[in-house]
Structures are given as structure tokens and as C-alpha cells.
């Protein structure tokens, strides 16, 4: 042949062609069946209204698969490897499709081929280049797995989950992981080999085919003096290996990890920006514990199907780090197992069957898992939904029970009367305005800890002092304030959350104010995301307020605190609501030398009190508590003796942890407001 182009089966006996088509048909049948099973799971779930803005969502999905997405920040190696593999695969796949159309559609039915001449040359070059990129990506992934197996990197690729009563066989999972990579590697290598042999056998040259790799290989074969018959036999064999490997892969897709190519994409597309920050209301007052397929939303099915067990979530989970029985990845894996069994036989709740209650109660809702996930899987709503089931069943520890009873009755978790909420304010001078009676510019929602805990009452008084000194027009709700309900909701007690929220909203209705401020990030999250819009005003954390006051020149400091300080980003302020810079600007204005924690901003490591854990019985994991790990992390920073916090729970947890870790002389935990007061 003189013109550039490819005759696909020209050199092969007819039986090859027929067998190939038969095998292809079989592969396609398996593929379709597998797809149908997966789709059936998806359709059996309930709709969740996330189709809105589909184009924008898809665009986001595409963007996140590139190195411009979130994975690059945490894992550049994996991000590059995956992108190379993905783009290579997509191009090679499209290449095969084009070839098939050319051969079996236009060629067969319309009598012409379009992959000829220049178009073919371009085609062959692009495919070769992307083939190389694909191979590079796959080799990087294989290398990573080898490093995990024999070295100490990428430990998350070795499984060590402890969440379920009936863990999946890790051997099977590892086999799936390896088979997936193996088939890809096989396809790439066999593909190039086949190409090289074909070129050698056909004797095509560069003029006819812009396939640098193939041409190079052919040259090498020539160099070793391979005889044409041998080459042809090898070519046929290699072609079969590639064909069978590829068909096997195709058939394998819906039954394996490879399905994430679709489900994972879907998982990103149908994820919600506000997931976790704003939890969904339960569909019924009687939680079923995910007993039926329709208990899952379609997006959740995509999350569960799409999860590739990469373990990025496990790596950042504070509960797992302290040895508690929670592994976010394990939860997903168990849900995967669970949905496979759904719809057949008697419905069983997932909790207590596939997933242990202990695992669910270990979660601090810090959101590190969701932030780290490459597929934007929403772990926290799943965990909260399962907690709702546990609460409905009454399966909660005695301390949590008491706390919830106290919250329900007294509006606080301290078992103290609601009337005693503002006792701390009696010491404030000048007295704090009563927002129920007077109009204020800023309504300060103090929060439970700031009102009832003796250590934090001190901090509240300092805040009041600073506010007064800068001439802020503010007031508090006094006895009408209730716990905002953020953690109550995340513990799974939706009923108490709603009654707390309703009570607070009612109290706020009677007030005249412009903005809401709070000293507690947990309160901040729920007021901002889960309460009805506040009067048209904004919800501000006091760090944001101080930042604004500094920018406006209303807050001036008389001195610069010249010492070194490190700052812990609170989970509910940072990861949840993206407020990273305001506190930093405040610190900068204070003149401190800010030394960032090794894990800062979105990588901040939770103190362990969230998700209602501060109310539960202490069941520390076998390793250190998260708060102790964190203060030790702070202590590694040279010249830093102050750990600045902006959350009352952080204050309590880190103060206790400093004592427990024996760091009392060397590290002091101070609230942002204490530093502000010092500099005034």
C-alpha cells in the first residue's frame, strides 16, 4: 500500500476477524450487563435535585480531573500520574472508536475510509504521543504501588480498615487494584509491541505513518534481524494479546475499580459545594439506616460507586490517626458492599451490620476527608445519616444521652438552667446591651461554652472588653439564646436541632440588628449555612469582625507584639467556610511573627472535639488524642511559645492537651482576643 492508512485485518486470516468480532460481542454484552446493574443501583436511589446547573457542574468535573484540580495541592505525584493515564486513555479510546467507525461503519456501509493520508498521519502521531504519556502515567502508578508494597510511602494503598463487622477481603481488593493496572499496562505495552511488529511486517515508513515509537521498535527488530515469518507470528500473537487484553478490560470495567471512570466523574459532577456545611433534612422522622436503595440519593450512589479506595481521606482523618475505629475510606467500602446486597432478601440497616456504631461515633465532622477527596465524595452527610439511625434506636452512650437531654431541656449541654446563661455578663463593665430590648448593630451570639464554661467565660469577658473599647454597638440575647445546634445536628438528633434553631430564630425575630457575630466557629457554620437568612445582614466570626475594624481604622493597636505565634485554623471556620485570611490579617496587624503550622489552612488537623465528641464518653484510641498530636506539632516550631486559637473548643482541648503532653512551660494556648487585648 502506498497511501498512508491502516488496513486493520488485512494481513490476518479470516478466522481472526470473525473470532475478534465474536469476542468483542461477548465483551460488549458483559459490559452492557455490568452497566445495567450499576445503572439499576443508580436509578433505584432517590432523586436529589442536583441536576440544576448541569453544564457548570460538568465543566467543574472536567477541570478537577486536570492538575488544576484539588488533588494537585495535596498529591502532585498522583495528580500528574493520573492525568497522564487519564488523558492517554481517553485519546487512545477515542482513537479506537475512530478506527472502528472508519473500518466498520463508513468503510463497511458507506464504502469509504477517512483515515487516509494526512488525517491518518496526524492520527497516528497523536495516538503514539498519547500512548507514551499513557504508559508513563501507568508506570508512575505501578511504581507508586511498588513503593507502597516494598517501601514506606503511600501507606494508604495498603489497607488497614477497622470500621466494619464484616470487612471485605483485602486480598480481593488488592487483586482488583492490581488487575486494573495490569490490564492497562498490558494494553499499553502490547499495543506498542503490536504496532512495532506491524510496521516491521508491513514495511511502512515514516512517510506513511507518523508513529515514532512504532517506527523505532520496527527499526530495532530490523536491527536484531528478525525474520518476516517470525515477525508475522509474533505480530499475530502480540495483536491477540492486545486485543484480548483490551476486550477483557472493556468487559471488566463495570465490575471493577475501572468503573470509576464514569462513576467518579459523576461523583464530582453531582457533588454539592455546600455538602457538609449545610446538611439535608431527613426525608422521614424514622431513619431506616440505609435499608432500602431509595434511602440513598443518586449522588450518594455515584459517590459510593466512584470511590476508588485511594485512601486520601484516611490519611487526613484525626480519628483514624488516634487509633479510633473510624476510617472514612472504610465507611465507603462498607457502603459499597452494602448496596450490592440491597434489594434482595430482608432489608437490613447498614449500621450494626456492615458498619460498627463505634466507627460512626468516632467522627469529629472535621471535613478533612471531604476536602482531601479527589472525587468530592461526601462522607459527612453519610455518617450523619447513619448517626440519625443510631439516635432513633437509642444507641448512644450515656454521656451523649445526658448532653442531648440537657440540650433539649435547658438549651445547653451543661445541665444548667437557661436563666443562668448570661450570668457571666454580670461581671462585664460597661454592662452588655440586651439585644432583645434595644436595637444593636451587631448581635453577638455568644455560644454555650462562652456562656457556661468558667475558662471560656473569662474569654467572653475579654471579648466584651475589646468590643467596648473599640466602641462597637453590640448586644447579646441573654437568656433567650440557645445552643445553636450545629453539633446537635451532626450528632444525628435532628429533632433537638430543629427545636433549638426554631427557638433561636424566634428570639432573633424580635430583635433589631444589622449583623450577627459569634465567637464560636461551630455556631458560625450553622448560623451562616443552616439558619434562615439573618435579617438581611451577614454572619461574622469575630476574627472577620476584628479584621474589618482594623481595615476601617476603628481598631488600632498601641504596640506590636513582637513574638512568634502559630495559628490553628478551626475546622468550622477554615475548611468549612473558607475563612483563612481574616485571622491572619489580624495577627499580622498585631505585629506577631506568624509561623505556620506544618498542617495549616485546609490541611489543619482537628482538635477532636467536634461532631459532638466533646459530649461523649471519653474512649481514647490506642494512640495519642488528636489534640495532643496537634500541640506537639506546634511545639516543633522553633521559637514559638504561643498557639493562637479562635474557637472555644480548640481552647479547651489544647489547654488540656498541653498539660497531658507535658508542654506546660513551653507552649501556651491563647485565644485571638487575648492577643488583641494585649496589643491594644
Amino acid at each position, binding site marked *: 500500500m502506498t497511501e498512508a492508512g491502516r488496513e486493520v485485518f488485512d494481513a490476518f486470516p479470516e478466522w481472526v476477524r470473525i473470532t475478534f468480532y465474536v469476542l468483542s460481542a461477548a465483551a460488549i454484552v458483559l459490559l452492557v450487563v455490568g452497566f445495567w446493574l450499576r445503572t439499576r443501583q443508580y436509578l433505584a436511589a432517590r432523586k436529589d435535585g442536583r441536576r440544576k446547573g448541569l453544564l457548570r457542574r460538568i465543566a467543574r468535573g472536567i477541570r478537577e480531573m486536570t492538575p488544576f484540580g484539588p488533588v494537585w495541592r495535596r498529591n502532585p505525584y498522583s495528580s500528574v500520574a493520573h492525568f497522564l493515564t487519564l488523558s492517554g486513555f481517553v485519546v487512545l479510546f477515542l482513537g479506537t472508536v475512530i478506527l472502528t467507525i472508519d473500518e466498520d461503519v463508513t468503510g463497511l456501509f458507506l464504502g469509504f475510509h477517512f483515515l487516509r493520508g494526512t488525517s491518518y498521519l496526524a492520527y497516528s502521531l497523536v495516538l503514539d504521543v498519547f500512548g507514551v504519556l499513557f504508559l508513563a502515567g501507568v508506570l508512575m502508578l505501578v511504581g507508586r504501588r511498588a513503593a507502597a508494597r516494598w517501601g514506606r510511602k503511600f501507606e494508604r494503598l495498603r489497607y488497614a480498615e477497622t470500621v466494619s463487622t464484616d470487612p471485605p477481603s483485602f486480598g480481593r481488593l488488592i487483586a482488583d487494584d492490581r488487575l486494573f493496572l495490569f490490564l492497562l499496562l498490558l494494553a499499553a505495552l502490547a499495543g506498542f509491541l503490536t504496532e512495532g511488529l506491524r510496521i516491521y511486517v508491513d514495511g511502512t515508513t515514516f512517510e506513511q505513518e507518523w508513529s515514532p515509537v512504532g517506527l523505532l521498535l520496527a527499526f530495532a527488530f530490523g536491527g536484531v534481524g528478525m525474520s518476516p515469518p517470525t515477525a508475522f507470528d509474533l505480530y499475530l500473537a502480540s495483536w491477540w494479546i492486545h486485543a484480548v487484553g483490551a476486550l477483557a478490560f472493556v468487559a471488566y470495567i463495570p465490575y471493577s475499580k475501572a468503573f470509576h471512570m464514569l462513576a467518579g466523574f459523576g461523583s464530582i459532577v453531582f457533588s454539592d459545594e455546600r455538602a457538609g456545611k449545610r446538611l439535608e433534612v*431527613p426525608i422521614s*422522622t*424514622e431513619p431506616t439506616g440505609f435499608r432500602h436503595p431509595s434511602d440513598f440519593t443518586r449522588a450518594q450512589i455515584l459517590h459510593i460507586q466512584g470511590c476508588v479506595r485511594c485512601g486520601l481521606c484516611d490519611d487526613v482523618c484525626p480519628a483514624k490517626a488516634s487509633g479510633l475505629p473510624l476510617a472514612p475510606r472504610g465507611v465507603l467500602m462498607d457502603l459499597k458492599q452494602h448496596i450490592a446486597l440491597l434489594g434482595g432478601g430482608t432489608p437490613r440497616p447498614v449500621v450494626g451490620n456492615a458498619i460498627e456504631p463505634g466507627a460512626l461515633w468516632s467522627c469529629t465532622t472535621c471535613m478533612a476527608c471531604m476536602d482531601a477527596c479527589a472525587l468530592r465524595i461526601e462522607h459527612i452527610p453519610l455518617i450523619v445519616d447513619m448517626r440519625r439511625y443510631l*439516635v*432513633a434506636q*437509642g444507641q*448512644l452512650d*450515656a454521656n451523649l*444521652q445526658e448532653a*442531648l*437531654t440537657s440540650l*433539649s*431541656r*435547658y438549651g445547653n449541654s451543661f*445541665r*444548667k*438552667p437557661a*436563666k443562668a446563661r448570661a450570668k457571666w455578663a454580670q461581671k462585664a463593665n460597661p454592662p452588655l446591651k440586651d439585644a432583645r430590648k434595644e436595637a444593636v448593630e451587631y448581635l453577638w451570639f455568644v455560644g454555650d461554652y462562652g456562656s457556661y464554661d468558667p475558662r471560656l467565660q473569662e474569654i467572653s469577658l475579654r471579648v466584651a472588653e475589646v468590643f467596648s473599647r473599640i466602641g462597637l454597638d453590640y448586644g447579646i440575647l441573654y437568656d433567650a439564646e440557645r445552643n445553636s445546634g450545629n453539633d446537635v445536628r451532626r450528632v444525628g*438528633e*435532628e*429533632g*433537638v436541632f*430543629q*427545636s433549638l434553631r426554631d427557638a433561636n430564630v424566634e428570639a432573633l425575630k424580635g430583635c433589631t440588628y444589622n449583623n450577627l457575630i459569634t465567637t464560636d466557629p461551630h455556631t458560625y457554620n450553622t448560623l451562616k449555612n443552616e439558619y434562615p437568612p439573618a435579617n438581611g445582614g451577614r454572619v461574622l466570626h469575630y476574627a472577620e469582625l476584628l479584621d474589618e475594624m482594623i481595615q476601617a481604622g476603628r481598631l488600632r493597636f498601641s504596640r506590636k507584639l513582637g513574638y512568634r505565634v502559630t495559628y490553628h485554623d478551626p475546622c468550622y471556620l477554615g475548611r468549612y467556610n473558607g475563612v483563612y485570611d481574616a485571622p491572619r490579617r489580624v495577627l499580622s496587624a498585631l505585629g506577631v511573627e506568624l509561623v505556620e503550622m506544618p498542617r495549616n489552612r485546609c490541611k489543619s488537623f482537628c482538635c477532636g472535639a467536634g461532631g459532638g465528641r466533646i459530649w461523649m464518653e471519653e474512649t481514647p484510641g490506642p494512640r495519642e488524642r488528636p489534640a495532643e498530636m496537634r500541640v506537639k506539632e506546634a511545639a516543633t516550631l522553633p521559637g514559638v511559645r504561643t498557639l493562637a486559637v479562635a474557637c472555644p473548643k480548640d481552647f479547651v482541648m489544647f489547654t488540656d492537651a498541653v498539660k497531658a503532653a507535658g508542654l506546660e512551660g513551653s507552649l501556651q494556648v491563647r485565644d485571638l482576643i487575648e492577643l488583641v487585648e494585649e496589643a491594644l
Partner: protein
Amino acid sequence: MKVAVILRLVPDVVEELVIADDGRSLAEDEIMYITNELDEHALEQALLLKERRGARLTAIGVGGDQARDALATAVAKGADEAVYVPLEAQDRADSHRIGAHLAGLLRQERFEVLLAGTQSIDELDGSLGGILASHLGLPYVGGLAAVDTDPSGSKATVKKEFPGGRLAVLEVSLPAVLGIQAAEQPPRYAAVSRIMQVKKSLQVKEWKAPVPDVVGVRITGLAKPEAAGRAEMIPGDAESVAARIARLLQERGLL
């Protein structure tokens, strides 16, 4: 087998107790009502009995409107039936009055087991259970930490607490009134959303009979204990307090 449990609504002592102007009672407006703690245990024990023996459980709520909430909670936890017995504030702590009143209700239906808390936080005139049992002509034993019955509901085996922490096993022919000190397990939790759901559809029977004119004991004076503040309070922060206590112990030769 039919079981009844009596839930009394009493003042919550977590809140501040405000004495009324008459100096003999609590200021009604300031009272926050809560289910008597030992009655919560009685309810839990009743639920355990229901689960074990397949009994039918009737919860009887005594007091003001809050009793309806207590009944909803009881049903959310598993009670089959709810009866509301309204009672004026001044009667709610009077065991004799309540006992005579409930006797009328309880004579209408045959219950094999009647459970109540051994005492309530506001009663001055002795246990409700004993008085009720007397009116009904039934045996009574209180201070119980465990109750079980035989499958036919003809007798109960109970564990009674004695001074010094000793437990004894007694056998009681049913029907009987039993006073619970502690249920075999801590009272279970009922999710608030379930309670609210129950409230919406709950049919509560009401016992509207007139309250008998019986008085247990009349209080002539109610006051804070005189000895309040008897302890010498140590000022200062935790460190200073600890230092003072340590010195104290040393002075007394306790170190």
C-alpha cells in the same frame, strides 16, 4: 399481661427554686416541670417487662400540661397507651391525694403490675406506691432494682435494695404495686423527632373524675436550709484552692 406505670411531673431542681409569697409553696410561675426521675426508671423497667413478657403497657401521666409531653415520650419509647390525669399544682406533691384519685382510675381495669418510682422529689407524705396499693387492696414493696414476672403473669420476682447496699429477692403474687428505685438498665433515649411525631397522632385518654378531698400533709413553711453556707468557702483559683486544702490536710496530720 397488663402493666401500668405512673409518671409524676415534679419541679426540676436544676432550675432555681423560688418560694412563693405565702412562704409555704413554690412560686408556680417559676416552676419548670420534669418527669420524676424514679418514675423514669419505673418506665424503663416497665418497658423491659413489656419486651420480655409481651405485656401491654399503659402510661399514666399525672400533673399539668407537661404530663402530656411525658406521655408522648413514654409512647415514643414503647408504651402502648396513654392516660392523662390532670392535677392542680398544689395537689401534685400530695401522695395521699394522688393515691386516692388514681385508685378510682386503676379500679376500672385490671393491671397485673403497677409500677411507680419509690419516691418523688417533692413528696412529703410518703410513697405514692404504698398508699395506692392500700386503696386497691394490693401488696406493695418498694426500693426495687429489678422486676421480672413469670410468663403467665401470676407472680413477680423482685430484687429489693436494703440498707448497706444489700439486695434481697422477694416473690410477690400479682396483681401488685411495685416501687422502683433503679431500673435494670439506665432509662433509654427517645429521639425528639420521634416524640414530636408521636405527639401529633397520640390519642390520650383523660381521667376526668373529681379529685378526692384528701390531704397528705400541709406544709406550713418552706425555706432554704439554714445551714446554707456552713462550709468555709476557699477563695481563689484552682491553684490557690489546692494549696489551701493541702495545708489544711497537713495541719490535721492527714498527709
